[in-house]
C-alpha cells in the first residue's frame, strides 16, 4: 500500500454515443399471432421465443405441463435437424402460458421455425409420450417442492389469495390422471394463435422472417372450442417463473438444472439469481432492449383478424368473458414451518401498478432506490451494514396477473425477526426520507444503462422483447420508457414511495424452522407505526 495516500478523483463519464437500435418488424398475422422479428447479426444464430395462452383446465397446471413436454414428441426428423443445426428447442409452461424457446444457426432457422409450426398445428401427443411425460414430471415434483423458495411461493399464493387459487405445482394424483386424449383436446381445442406471441432475433432479415412465419403458421386456425375457453391466463396456473425471483425455483423443466454447480461464489447474487435479470419479468432494473421504431411497422397482410376473409370475428370465439382478476387480500404475515431449516425465506407483497400506468415510471424509481439494485437502501441496511442477508430485493412483478411489489430476503433463523424489523424500518424511512436527487438519478441511469446491456446479445434482446409483449407493451416502450424516466420528478418519486410502501399494505409469509421462529415476533406489519 502506498505510504502517502494520494487523493484521486472519480473520472467523469464520457458522453455516450447513441445506442445503435436494431431494425425490427412488428406484425399481427391474419390468425391473430403477433410476430416481432429483429435483426441483430452479432453471431450467425437466431433466437426464437414463443408464448401461447392456455385456457383453464380441470387438471390445473398438470395438463399444460404434459402438453408442453410432449409438444415435439412426434416431430418427424427433429433429432436430425436439431443436431445438424446445433440447435436447442424446448417447451414449458410459465404463468399459465405455453412457452417455447429455441436457438439455432441462422442457416437452419427456416427449418426449425417450420418444425415449431408443425408441432403447434399438428402435434399428436402420442399416448406413450404422454405416459412418459407424466412419469418424468412426477419424478421432478419432489425435488422441486423441497426447494425452500418454491415452498415460500406456494404458501404466499394461498396466504394472500385464499385456499382456492390454482396450485403453483401440480399434485401427483392430478398428474397421474392426465390422459393423452385430454392433452390432445387441450392442444387442438384450447390453444389458439389469438393472443400468442412470437419473437425472432438474430442474423435474419426481419421482413423475410415475418413472411416465413406467416407462411409456416398460416394453417394454425384461430379457433378455440375448449369448454370454458377464455383467452386470458388469469385462471390458470399463474406465474410460476415470473413470480419466482430466483432461478433456483424454476419451472418443472428446470427443476434439476438448478442443482448444477454454483457458478462460484459471488460478492452479490449472480445475475442469474437476481430477480431483476431473470427470464421472467420484473420491473426493477432489468436488461431491456431498445429496438428502433420499425422500418416496416406493419406488413401489408397484417390486417386485424376481423377483416381477414374466412376468419370468424373475434367476438364469436369468446363466448365466456374472462374471469375477474384476482386481488390479494390483506392477510398479515404468516409463519410457514420447514423443520430443519437453517435459514428463513421472507416473502412480502403489496399491490403495485400495471406497467402501462402513468405512475409506473415513478414507482419503478422508488422501488429501485428501496431494493431494486445493489446500491439500494435495503441492500445497504440489511446486508452491507448488518450482515443479515446475502440476498435482499424489492421487485415489481405479477402474481396471478396482479401487479405487486415483492420484498424478498433469506436470513438465518435466529436473526429473522431482526431482518423483518429492518425491512419495516426501511419501508417507513422511504416515506419519511423519500429518495434524494442523487439516489433517484442513480436509479434512472441504471435503468437506462440496463436497456443497452440487455440488448447487447441476441438472447438478451429476444427475452426483453418477449417480456414487453407479454405486458401488452410495444417494442417502442424500450425507447420511450427511459425518456419517461428522465421526466419523472422527485415529487412523483416521493409520492410513489409514500403511497405504495407503507408497511400496513404488505402481507406475506416467512418460511423457516418452526421451533427456531416460535419465540420471534412477526406481527409488525399490521401495526401503524
Amino acid at each position, binding site marked *: 500500500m*502506498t505510504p502517502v495516500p494520494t487523493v484521486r478523483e472519480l473520472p467523469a463519464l464520457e458522453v455516450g454515443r447513441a445506442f445503435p437500435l436494431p431494425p425490427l418488424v412488428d406484425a399481427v398475422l391474419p390468425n391473430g399471432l403477433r410476430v416481432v422479428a429483429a435483426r441483430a447479426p452479432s*453471431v450467425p444464430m437466431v433466437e426464437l421465443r414463443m408464448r401461447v395462452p392456455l385456457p383453464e383446465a380441470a387438471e390445473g397446471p398438470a395438463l399444460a405441463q404434459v402438453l408442453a413436454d410432449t409438444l415435439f414428441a412426434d416431430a418427424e426428423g427433429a433429432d436430425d435437424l436439431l*443436431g445438424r443445426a446445433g440447435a436447442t428447442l424446448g417447451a414449458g409452461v410459465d404463468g399459465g402460458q405455453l412457452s417455447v424457446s429455441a436457438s439455432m444457426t441462422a442457416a437452419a432457422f427456416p427449418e426449425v421455425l417450420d418444425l415449431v409450426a408443425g408441432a403447434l398445428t399438428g402435434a399428436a401427443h402420442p399416448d406413450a409420450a404422454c405416459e412418459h411425460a407424466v412419469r418424468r414430471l412426477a419424478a421432478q415434483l419432489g425435488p422441486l*417442492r423441497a426447494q425452500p423458495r418454491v415452498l415460500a411461493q406456494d404458501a404466499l399464493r394461498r396466504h394472500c389469495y385464499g385456499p382456492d387459487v390454482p396450485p403453483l405445482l401440480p399434485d401427483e394424483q392430478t398428474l397421474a390422471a392426465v390422459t393423452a386424449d385430454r392433452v390432445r383436446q387441450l392442444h387442438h381445442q384450447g390453444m389458439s394463435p389469438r393472443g400468442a406471441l412470437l419473437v425472432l432475433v438474430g442474423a435474419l432479415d426481419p421482413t423475410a422472417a415475418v413472411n416465413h412465419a406467416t407462411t409456416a403458421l398460416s394453417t394454425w386456425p384461430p379457433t378455440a372450442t375448449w369448454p370454458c375457453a377464455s383467452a386470458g391466463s388469469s385462471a390458470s396456473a399463474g406465474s410460476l417463473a415470473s413470480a419466482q425471483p430466483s432461478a433456483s425455483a424454476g419451472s418443472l423443466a428446470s427443476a434439476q438444472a438448478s442443482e448444477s454447480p454454483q457458478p462460484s*461464489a*459471488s*460478492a452479490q447474487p449472480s445475475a442469474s439469481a437476481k430477480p431483476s435479470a431473470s427470464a421472467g419479468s420484473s420491473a426493477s432494473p432489468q436488461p431491456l432492449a431498445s429496438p428502433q421504431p420499425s422500418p416496416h411497422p406493419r406488413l401489408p397482410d397484417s390486417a386485424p383478424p376481423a377483416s381477414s376473409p374466412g376468419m370468424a370475428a373475434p367476438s364469436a370465439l369468446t363466448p365466456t368473458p374472462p374471469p375477474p382478476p384476482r386481488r390479494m387480500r390483506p392477510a398479515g404475515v404468516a409463519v410457514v414451518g420447514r423443520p430443519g431449516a437453517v435459514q428463513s425465506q421472507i416473502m412480502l407483497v403489496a399491490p403495485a401498478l400495471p406497467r402501462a400506468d402513468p405512475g409506473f415510471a415513478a414507482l419503478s424509481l422508488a422501488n429501485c432506490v428501496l431494493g431494486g439494485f445493489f446500491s439500494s437502501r435495503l441492500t445497504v441496511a440489511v446486508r452491507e451494514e448488518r*450482515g443479515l442477508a446475502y440476498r435482499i430485493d424489492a421487485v415489481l412483478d405479477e402474481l396471478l396477473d396482479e401487479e405487486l411489489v415483492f420484498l424478498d430476503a433469506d436470513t438465518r433463523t435466529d436473526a429473522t425477526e431482526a431482518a423483518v424489523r429492518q425491512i419495516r424500518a426501511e419501508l417507513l424511512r422511504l416515506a419519511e426520507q423519500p429518495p434524494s436527487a442523487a439516489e433517484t438519478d442513480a436509479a434512472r441511469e441504471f435503468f437506462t444503462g*440496463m436497456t443497452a446491456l440487455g440488448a447487447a446479445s441476441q438472447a438478451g434482446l429476444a427475452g426483453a422483447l418477449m417480456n414487453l409483449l407479454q405486458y401488452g407493451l410495444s417494442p417502442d416502450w424500450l425507447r420511450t420508457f427511459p425518456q419517461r424516466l428522465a421526466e419523472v420528478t422527485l415529487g412523483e418519486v416521493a409520492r410513489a414511495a409514500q403511497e405504495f410502501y407503507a408497511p400496513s399494505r404488505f402481507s406475506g409469509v416467512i418460511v423457516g424452522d418452526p421451533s427456531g421462529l416460535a419465540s420471534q415476533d412477526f406481527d409488525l406489519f399490521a401495526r401503524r407505526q
Partner: protein
Amino acid sequence: MRTEILDNGLRVLLDPRPNSPVTGIAVHYDVGFRSEPEGRTGFAHLFEHLMFQGSENVARGEHFRHVQASGGTANAATHHDHTDYHQLVPPGALERVLFLEADRMRALRISAENLRTQVAVVQEEIRLQVTNRPYGGFPWTVLPGVLYDTFPNAHNGYGDLRELERATVAECEAFFAAHYTPANAVLTISGPVDPHHALTLVHRHFGDIPAHPAAPRPRLTEPPPRGERRGEHRDPHAPLPAVALGYRMPDPAADLGDYLAHMVLARLLAGGDDARLRRRLVHDGTVTSVRASCGFFGPLQARDPDTFLLVAHHPPTTDPEAVPSAVDEELDRLAATGPDPRELAHATARAATALCRSYDDPLTRTRHAGAFALLHDTPHLVTDLPTLLPQVTAESVTHAAKALRTAGRAVLTLIPGGGP
C-alpha cells in the same frame, strides 16, 4: 485482440468489438480457492467480498454505487485458480471503472467491522446456496474430497463457517499483499474501444501501482487416483438420491486437442435429448436427469488437474450401480467402435453453437477471455473454440473414451434425508 504488459507486470488484454454497444472490463487475479491456506477454507471467497468494502479513494459500497449510477453492473466470482472482478458498462464509463479497479488494486482498506459483516454475509450465502436447500453444493463442494488427496484440490471452496469466523484483518492484509499484485493479474477490456485510447487510460490509472512479487502458486500436481474411490454425502433436504462421477481431465496446457475431445465426449454422453445416456437412462425412468461436463464451473475454467463429471438424479427404486454401469458400458462401446459420424457431427455442432451463443453475451466473452489469458495464455479461445470443436475427430473422441474407461474415478452417492 492484443496483450500489453505494463512495467509493474500487469497484463492488459484488449479486445476491440466495434459493433458492441457495451464495454466489459474484468480484472482476473491469479488466486482462487485452491490457493487458500489449510484451516481457512473459504478464505479466498471471503476476501473477494472484502474487495468491495472500500479502498484509498473509494468508500465502502461506493464501487457498486459508481458502476450502477453509470448505467452498469458489477460482480465478482471465486474459482479454483482465479478470482475475477467484472463490470459491464456503457462505453462512456470505461475510465471510471478503470479508476475503481486500480484504486482497490493499489490500496485496499480492510477494517475489522467490515470483515465481521462480510463473514456474516458469506455465511448467509452458504446457507442459501448449500446448507438450506436440497442438492446445495452438490457435487462441487464434496466430490473433490473423494477424487483428490491434497488439500488444495480436495477441500470445499465455499468453506467451513467456523473457519471463516477465525479470519483476521492481518490475514486479509497478508493475503492481499501476497496475491493481489499487478503482475498477478490480467486486465481485460472488451468493447467498442480504440485500443490506443484504452491503453492511455490504463497507463494513467494502473501505471503507478508499484510492482511487488506475488506468492508462488499452490502446488496442485498429484498422481491420478488408481481404481475407483467411493464416497457418500448425506443431504437432509433432498427427497431423492443422486450420484456423481468424477474423473481427471487431460492437462489443456499439454494437449488442448485431447481436452476438446473430452468436451465433445461430454456432449455425446449427455448433451442433448438424443445423447447416449439420456436415451438409455432417462427415457426408461432409470434416472430423472443426467448431465456431463468438463470442469465444475465449465470447460477450461481451472488449471490442471481439472475434473470431468457426470451427475444423475434418480428414483429410490433405481439400483445405485445402474448409473456407473451404464457409463462404463457406453464408454466401452465408444472405445470399441467410436462415435458414428452423424452422432459426432451433432455433438460438435451443439458444442460449437452453445459456445457461439455464450460468447455473444459480452460479459461472458470478457470474463472467459480474461480467464483463458490468465490460466492458459490462450485468450483467443473465445473466438477459436467454436471453430476448433467441429474439428474434433472420431479418433480423438474414441481415445478420450478409452482414457476415461481405464482411469481411476470417484463415485459419490447422495443419500437423501437423515434429519437436519
